[in-house]
């Protein structure tokens, strides 16, 4: 089972776990419509579409409402640390959440006790807390953007906001930031660095740099990174190895962008509509 876990921006929404359904407006979990179309919801829609396209079971969602007050995030952390060993999760994607070092370590302790550990993907706040806690090695894939890979390269920063200026200014040398992030053991085996050029890396090496098609207007669109994380999650759940999943997702994101013909004002749901077609095209490219 692919489990997608994170907070959603609905104040006081209780903890909900269940199979994700697609609706005309967004997604639905256990009868709760989530029509926000950004953040977790965009990632979950992308994962769902990918699972359907590649013949995998629909993903499950574990969510709670949190607009930054920590309440929902705490429920997600606690549910996972208490219940993960009994949920039958094979792939776990952790997404938007308020970083909480102690609670995250409890989840990792719970996973360490499992005979069959889930494949672990982290993005957003879940990636921040993993890095800051020195726990990146417990995960399998991170999906940072340019600002976040600078944070991962900075062994002293607790959060991207604290990335030191001299590292922030190295963003025109992404391969060096990647080297620094691996050297500091702040990343797992595989990372997908999202940017003008996407870098797919494994064990410290850049396996693939993808820069075509180049759709400049994708950069300002909120949620495009969430689509990549969702696609990688769905592809891994469908049995693709980590690097191949990242390569398909990287090509598909750019193809979907090209098909959308976006402006900087385009919203991510417009790109989502093209995801199935883009995934089919990307799979052909990666298969050679």
């Amino acid at each position, binding site marked *: 089972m692919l489990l997608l876990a994170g907070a*959603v*921006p609905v104040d006081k929404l209780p903890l909900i776990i269940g199979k994700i359904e697609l609706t005309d407006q967004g997604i639905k979990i256990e009868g709760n419509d989530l029509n926000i179309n950004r953040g*977790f919801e965009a990632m979950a829609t992308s994962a769902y579409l990918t699972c359907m396209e590649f013949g995998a079971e629909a993903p499950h969602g574990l969510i709670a409402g949190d607009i930054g007050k920590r309440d929902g995030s705490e429920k997600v952390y606690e549910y996972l640390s208490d219940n993960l060993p009994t949920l039958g999760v094979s792939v776990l994607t952790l997404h938007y959440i308020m970083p909480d070092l102690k609670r995250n370590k409890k989840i990792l302790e719970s996973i360490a006790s499992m005979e069959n550990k889930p494949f672990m993907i982290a993005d957003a706040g879940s990636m921040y807390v993993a890095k800051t806690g020195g726990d990146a090695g417990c995960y399998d894939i991170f999906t940072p*953007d340019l600002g976040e890979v600078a944070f991962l390269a900075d062994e002293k920063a607790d959060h*991207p*906001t604290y990335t030191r200026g001299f590292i922030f200014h190295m963003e025109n040398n992404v391969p060096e930031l990647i080297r620094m992030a691996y050297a500091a053991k702040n990343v797992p085996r595989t990372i997908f660095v999202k940017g003008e050029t996407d870098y797919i890396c494994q064990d410290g090496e850049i396996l693939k740099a993808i820069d075509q098609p180049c759709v400049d207007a994708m*950069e*300002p669109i909120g949620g495009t990174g969430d689509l990549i994380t969702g696609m990688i999650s769905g592809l891994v759940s469908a049995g693709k190895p980590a690097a191949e999943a990242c390569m398909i997702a990287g090509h598909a994101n750019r193809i979907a962008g090209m098909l959308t013909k976006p402006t900087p*004002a385009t919203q991510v749901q417009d790109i989502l509509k093209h995801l199935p077609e883009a995934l089919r095209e990307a799979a052909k490219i990666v298969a050679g």
Partner: protein
Amino acid sequence: MKWFKKDKKTDEDKKESVTRGLLIFAHPTTVIAVEEVLRDEGYDIRVVSPPPQYRTGCDLSVEFPLSEEATITGMLKTIGLAPMDVMPITSKGMEPLRFIRKKDFGDYLMVRAANMKITVDKRTKVIVNISGGGCPDVPHLATEMLGKRLRDAPNPGEIGFSLCAYSLNTAREEIIRLIGG
């Protein structure tokens, strides 16, 4: 006698370092309000990361002159911004990144601070996209701010709670400085 001189210097450093204190708050964005108040009052302050025992992974605190503790905490209490703790400090915390990157898309301007991007239609000053970040108030902030003019959109420093909201506010202030609200 070189070693003696070195010891003396260390003592002086220590004496100097405990003249500063830290105000600890529950949410990073409370610090934005406190920072504004204390700067307006002319205090020599810095916004920095708190010490390890207060870190959750998304934190911000205010470094201030310890000699002003009673006055500052009293004033903050009267305006409903009392810190949850006050402590002396012996080492410098890290400061939030204030560097900005901007990208011009013709009719649109994007400004990025740390991991947060805001994009505005230059003709209408309407916020068309907010991207980046990882704390759960980011999608909430996007919902509240998108489609609104810069001058009408809520301030992420007031309705957000996280360091991502702090960075988004930095980007928003810069875009207002560049094109007006």
